[in-house]
């Protein structure tokens, strides 16, 4: 399928518009991606509107899951393990500020990894830049992410926490969270087309990551207990930087950012993004032949 909406009708005597050759598709890639933006939007809307069809409580699932997880984490880490949040921030809000990006990351990872295989029929019958499929899967998870912000607002009202000016930087951190999910998402999408092993690896990564990332506790706990060197190593997990960023934006000075660690996390996010996109583009042309 290669209808080209932006192209004027071909005039007699004009040059050929489209040349297909081995390795040729590279050249118009980003231009093509822009041309197919409507398909991208429609696919994302499809996934969002289908997500909670034929469920009894519908969109409430996007609220219940993170809320209950937050409750259990607060009980375990705060009440049972006796960890404390830094400064005066309520533990529940501190946990939830981390739950937001973490849940987004994990749901984006699991839905992108399945997206290409789930749309196998589409990609074997129609042409469009394949990047659209995992990207729209990330957008779908992003919708859930925005919905669960309602819980955060509710919690802030309940605990009467007034956000500082830091909250204005939140969109920036949301953007980072988006990119942090997209990079590994693309990599895993491409890998999963060829090696279906990733179907089994993903749930493990997510489960592992829930405890390995500072979701239920403050990252300063790690820094205090193991020292700065270990913390730098810890920041190789890109979600450490993303979560710290979220906490800093939501809780203000109660949760200071440790800059070297944050920068390292950003570098890792960027690295994953570059690897993800380049590996995806390198392999996407053969998707249809192996899916």
């Amino acid at each position: 399928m290669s209808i080209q909406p932006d192209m004027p009708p071909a005039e007699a005597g004009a040059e050929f518009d489209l040349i297909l050759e081995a390795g040729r598709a590279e050249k118009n890639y980003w231009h093509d991606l822009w041309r197919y933006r409507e398909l991208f939007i429609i696919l994302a809307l499809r996934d969002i509107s289908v997500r909670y069809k034929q469920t009894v409580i519908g969109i409430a699932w996007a609220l219940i899951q993170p809320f209950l997880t937050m409750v259990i984490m607060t009980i375990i880490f705060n009440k049972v393990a006796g960890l404390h949040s830094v400064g005066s921030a309520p533990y529940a809000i501190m946990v939830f500020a981390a739950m937001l990006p973490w849940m987004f990351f994990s749901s984006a990872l699991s839905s992108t990894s399945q997206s290409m295989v789930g749309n196998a029929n589409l990609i074997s019958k129609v042409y469009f830049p394949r990047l659209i499929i995992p990207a729209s899967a990330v957008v779908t998870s992003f919708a859930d992410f925005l919905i669960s912000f309602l819980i955060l607002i509710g919690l802030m009202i309940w605990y009467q926490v007034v956000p500082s000016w830091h909250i204005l930087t939140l969109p920036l951190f949301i953007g980072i969270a988006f990119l942090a999910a997209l990079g590994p998402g693309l990599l895993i999408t491409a890998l999963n087309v060829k090696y279906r092993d990733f179907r089994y690896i993903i749930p493990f990564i997510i489960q592992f990551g829930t405890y390995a990332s500072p979701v239920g506790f403050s990252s300063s706990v790690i820094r205090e207990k193991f020292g700065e060197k270990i913390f730098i190593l810890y920041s190789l997990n890109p979600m450490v930087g993303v979560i710290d960023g979220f906490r800093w934006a939501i809780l203000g000075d109660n949760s200071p950012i440790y800059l070297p660690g944050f920068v390292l996390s950003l570098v890792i996010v960027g690295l994953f993004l570059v690897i993800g996109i380049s590996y995806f583009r390198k392999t996407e042309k053969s998707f249809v032949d192996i899916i």
Partner: protein
Amino acid sequence: MSNQSVISVENLGKVYRINHQAERQRYVALRDVIAEKFQGLFRSRRPQLDKFSSAEDFWALKDVSFDVKQGEVTGIIGRNGAGKSTLLKILSRITEPTEGRVRIKGRVASLLEVGTGFHPELTGRENTYLNGAILGMSRAEIRKKFDEIVAFAGIEQFLDTPVKRYSSGMYVRLAFAVAAHLEPEILIVDEVLAVGDVEFQKKCMGKMQDVSTKEGRTVLFVSHNMSAISRLCSSAIILNKGNKAYDGTTNQGIQKYLAQFSEISQPATWIDIASCPRQGGRTNVYFHSAAYLGPSGESHSLPVSGKELLFKLRISSDIKRSVSSLSVMIYSPSFQKLLNADSLLLAQAVLLEKGLNEVHVKIHQLHLKPGRYPIGLWLANPTEIFELIESAFEIEVINEDNRQTPEIPNDGVMACDFNIYQPILT
């Protein structure tokens, strides 16, 4: 319509690697790759023979070149596995060629399937927008044509019902309606006409004819259905095992294509047709072999113009079943259906036992002139088509006086009893 080439294909080739080991599972498991790499470590000094023994290159297309001019309707024919689908996939940018190149001028839309991307949970309205976007229409374009699409499909009152509640007929109608309202300059159509009921197929054919003749679009059309090809296409390309075997007029192309597997078969001998190409592939019930016999009492057994002709058909069935429509069709050399001796016309069902069955079809008077005629076979129930073989074998009809008359061009194919006299006018 100009003589401008809008599709130019040069030395196109596509190779697939067939991995014999991986035949049972369709994808590679990481485990195997890791194991292979490890084995490679220990075996790296040895010749890499066994690495290649498991994989084999298969050229689905090789050195194919052709041009399609603006406004031309070109049929692409070939047996299963001849490379038709691969060609369409390359032209519609789904997969990349391994070698050669294709140049295309104008907007291309390809319709390799009706209803691609339909989501069962979404309503008819939502699916129309979704499918339109997938086929390359902009939202504004779909909005403009929305009413037309809905009217064509005839689903007005079900617009806001999820399509999973649609009957299969409604589903296909809506899907085709969206596709039919595409307005590309070049349309690539795979065998989409082979779905749906007879009514729907007729509607598709009509729409296809409109697109090609009235609107002057360039169309590439793949089908196994020779009569559809001969009705729609002005030129034809035959693919055979990935190579281009023919490129020229439709009529010649069809004759050449059919000649590949139907030679004149000897009368009064069993002709193996179990491996004939057929539409949709062989099912549980299929024509196994056939024989034909001219009028009895003649030593040559050839069909004779004006006399009786007997077809003996052996049909294999997996279970005991009753089939309502069994027919023998005789085609003209240019592939017009001349006659259809169908059990449906006699309101007579055919009862098939498990295993091989023999059924005879006897034509009492064969009103055909001397010549060669392809024979088609058909087997179906109202809801299911078991077999459609458009050219199972060819017969040669001779004159009653035993020898062929000199051929007169364009003298028709039908024979009739007639005499010529001059009335005496008073």
